[in-house]
C-alpha cells in the first residue's frame, strides 16, 4: 500500500511538471498532400509487399484486430495493470483510421511514440521496441497499411483511471524507460546476427513480453530477454538465453527455428500467447530471418545459476500424490521419462516452461489444455485435454510440483493457492 501511495505522489508531481513540457511537445499533423512521400511511392506494389511481410513480422494484427473483427480495424481491448487500452483502427479509413495520416505522422508514432498532434502514446503500443525500426521499413509498413481496405470502426473509450489517463504523466515514464533511436548494427558481428538482433529488438518486440517489468510497467534493461511475467495476461514468457542456466539452455539453432516455424521443436511446444504469435506471425517468416533470429538468441549471455530451492516445505507427500496423478493422467502422452513423443507431445523434462520461476505456465496448461499452434507445418495439431474440470486444486498443485522436480527438473514446488488464482480462463 505504501508503495502505491509513493507511486501516486511521484506520478502526480510528474504530471504537473509534465504539463508544461507536454504543451511544448505539441506538433501539427502533416497532411498527406504536404508529405515528403508521394502518393505514387505509397502505391508501389513491391513496397506494399515488403510492408505486408514486415507487418507480419511485427504481428501488428495481434493487437489491432478484435476477436472476430476486421483485420487491422482495431477494437481489441488490451488489459494492463493500469487499466484497459483499446487498440486503434489502423486501416486507411479517413474518419476512424489512418486515412488522413501522412508517413511523417506514422513515423512520429512508430519511432517517437507520439500521435499526430504530438500527444504521448501509451507504451502498450510497443514503441520502446519499434523505435529501432529503420525509416525504409517503416515506409514499407505504412504503404501496406494504406493499401488495406478502409474499415469504418470508431475507437472504443480508454479504460484508464487517474493518474494514468493524464497523458503527460508519460513524460516521466519515457524519461525512465524510453530511448529513441533506430537499430545501430554492430560492425563486429555477422550480418545474420545483426539482422536477428534488429528483428528481435525492433519489429518482433520480443522483449515486451520476455523481460521482467517493474511496478511502473517499465523494463530496466533493454533488451534483456531474461524472461518475465506478462502483466495482466498472467503467463510467464521464459528467458530466451540458450547458454548455461538460460531458459532455453541447450536449444540448438534448429530447435529455435522449428518452434518459430511450426510451433513445435524437440524441446517444447508454443502455447498461450506464444501459440498465437507463432500462428499469426513467426510461421510466415522467411527461413533466413528465422535463422538470423536463432543466431542472435544463441548469442545471449549465460545466466547466473538459480539458487537451490530453500522452501521449508516437506514435499514428500505432495510428490507422491503428484507422481500418481502423473502416471494416471499424463504419462500416456508425455512418457514416464517425461520426454514426450517427438513431433507430437512435448517433453516436460528440461522444458523451459515447466521450469520457469513462477510455475504459472505449467499450472495454466494443466488447467486449460489446448491445441499446439496450427501452422502450415502442423495443420492438424494434436491437443492436450483441459484438466480444470477433472483435477482439484490439490491434485493440480501436486502434479505440477512433481513434473517441476522429476527427471532433470529442479524447480520450486507449487501450492494450492497458486492454482486457485489461475482457475479462470483468459479470453484476451
Amino acid at each position: 500500500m505504501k508503495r502505491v501511495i509513493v507511486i501516486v505522489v511521484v506520478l502526480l508531481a510528474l504530471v504537473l511538471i509534465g504539463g508544461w513540457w507536454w504543451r511544448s511537445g505539441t506538433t501539427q499533423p502533416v497532411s498527406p498532400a504536404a508529405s515528403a512521400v508521394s502518393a505514387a511511392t505509397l502505391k508501389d506494389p513491391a513496397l506494399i509487399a515488403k510492408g505486408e511481410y514486415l507487418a507480419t513480422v511485427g504481428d501488428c494484427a495481434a493487437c489491432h484486430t478484435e476477436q472476430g473483427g476486421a483485420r487491422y480495424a482495431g477494437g481489441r481491448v488490451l488489459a494492463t495493470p493500469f487499466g484497459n487500452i483499446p487498440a486503434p483502427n489502423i486501416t486507411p479509413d479517413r474518419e476512424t483510421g489512418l486515412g488522413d495520416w501522412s508517413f511523417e505522422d506514422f513515423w512520429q508514432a512508430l519511432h517517437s511514440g507520439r500521435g499526430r498532434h504530438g500527444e504521448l502514446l501509451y507504451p502498450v503500443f510497443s514503441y520502446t521496441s519499434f523505435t529501432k525500426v529503420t525509416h525504409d521499413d517503416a515506409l514499407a509498413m505504412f504503404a501496406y497499411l494504406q493499401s488495406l481496405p478502409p474499415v469504418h470502426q470508431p475507437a472504443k473509450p480508454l479504460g484508464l483511471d487517474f493518474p494514468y489517463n493524464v497523458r503527460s504523466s508519460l513524460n516521466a515514464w519515457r524519461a525512465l524507460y524510453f530511448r529513441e533511436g533506430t537499430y545501430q548494427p554492430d560492425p563486429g558481428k555477422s550480418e545474420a546476427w545483426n539482422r536477428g538482433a534488429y528483428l528481435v529488438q525492433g519489429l518482433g518486440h520480443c522483449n515486451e513480453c520476455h523481460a521482467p517489468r517493474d511496478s511502473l510497467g517499465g523494463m530496466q534493461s533493454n533488451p534483456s530477454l531474461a524472461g518475465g511475467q506478462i502483466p495482466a495476461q498472467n503467463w510467464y514468457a521464459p528467458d530466451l538465453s540458450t547458454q548455461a542456466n538460460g531458459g532455453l539452455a541447450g536449444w540448438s539453432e534448429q530447435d529455435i527455428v522449428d518452434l518459430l516455424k511450426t510451433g513445435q521443436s524437440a524441446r517444447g511446444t508454443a502455447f498461450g500467447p506464444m501459440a498465437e504469435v507463432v500462428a499469426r506471425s513467426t510461421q510466415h517468416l522467411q527461413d533466413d530471418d528465422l535463422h538470423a533470429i536463432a543466431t542472435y538468441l544463441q548469442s545471449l549471455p549465460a545466466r547466473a545459476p538459480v539458487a537451490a530451492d530453500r522452501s521449508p516445505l516437506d514435499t514428500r507427500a505432495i510428490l507422491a500424490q503428484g507422481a500418481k496423478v502423473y502416471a494416471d493422467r499424463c504419462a500416456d502422452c508425455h512418457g514416464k521419462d517425461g520426454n514426450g513423443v517427438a513431433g507430437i507431445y512435448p517433453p516436460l523434462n528440461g522444458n523451459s516452461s515447466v521450469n520457469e520461476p513462477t510455475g504459472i505456465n505449467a499450472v495454466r496448461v494443466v488447467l486449460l489444455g489446448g491445441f499446439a499452434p496450427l501452422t502450415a507445418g502442423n495443420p492438424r495439431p494434436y491437443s492436450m485435454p483441459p484438466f480444470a474440470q477433472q483435477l482439484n486444486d490439490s491434485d493440480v498443485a501436486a502434479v505440477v510440483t512433481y513434473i517441476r522436480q522429476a527427471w532433470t527438473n529442479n524447480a520450486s514446488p507449487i501450492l494450492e493457492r497458486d492454482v486457485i488464482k489461475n482457475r479462470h480462463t483468459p479470453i484476451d
Partner: protein
Amino acid sequence: MKRLSAKLWQVKRVVGPCMLLMMAASVAHAQDAPHPVIPDTIQQRIAACTACHGVHGEGTPESGFFPRLAGKPAGYLARQLQDFQDGLRKYGPMEYTVRQLSPEYMREIAAYFSAQDVPYTRSPMPRLSGDALQRGEQLVTHGDPSRKIPACSACHGAQLTGVQPDIPGLIGLPYDYISSQLGSWRTRTRATVAPDCMSEIANRLSESDISAVSAWLAGRELPGDMHAQPAGSVTPPLHCGVLGDKGDGV
C-alpha cells in the same frame, strides 16, 4: 582354417551374449515402453475436445453441462466452433481451445462428432404443470402467431431431429441445456452471424415459455430414427444467417 574357425568362435562368444542382451533389452523396452505408440487418428488429436464432450461426443447427459455433440449435423457443429472463435458464442474454455484452429480443421472435427452414433440417455426433468407442458407443445408444434413466434418444427423438422447440414435436432437434449441456450440468446452470450433468427425468437419468448418449451422437448418420447432429416426438407419462416440467408429478418 583352424585359426579362422577359432576366430569365428571368438566372435560368436562375444556376439552371442550381446544379441541375447539386445533381445532382452528390446523385450524389456516393449514391456516398459515410456511412450506408447500414439495413433494418428482424429480422435487422438482432439483430446482437448473429448475430455469434456466424451470420446464419441456423448456429452454429460446427467448434468447437461457439456453438451452432446454426437450425431449433430456437421455444418451446425462447424458453425459453433467458428462462433466461439469469433466471440459470438461466449464461453472462456471453448474460446480458448478453438482460438486458432483453421476452418478446415474445424470442419474435420465437426465431421468426426457428426458421424458418431451414440444412444440417447434420459436427463433429469423439472416438475411442470400440465398447462405449462401444453403451452410447450403448442409453441413447439404451432408457435404463437400473435407474438410472431414460429413453430420449432418449422425449421428443426417435423420429427424435431434437425435438418442437414445446418439445423440441429431438439429432442434427446437435457432440459437444462435447452433452457440455458434459449436464455443465452437473450443475454447475448450466444449469437451467430446476422440475421440471427434464433436470437429474435428467443427474445420473443417469455421466461415461462422457455421453461415450457424446454420441458416438453426434454420429455418427448424419442423416435426410432434420431438422424437429421435430409437437406432442403424445411422452408424456414425467418431469415437466418446460419442458413446462408442474408435477408433483413422478419
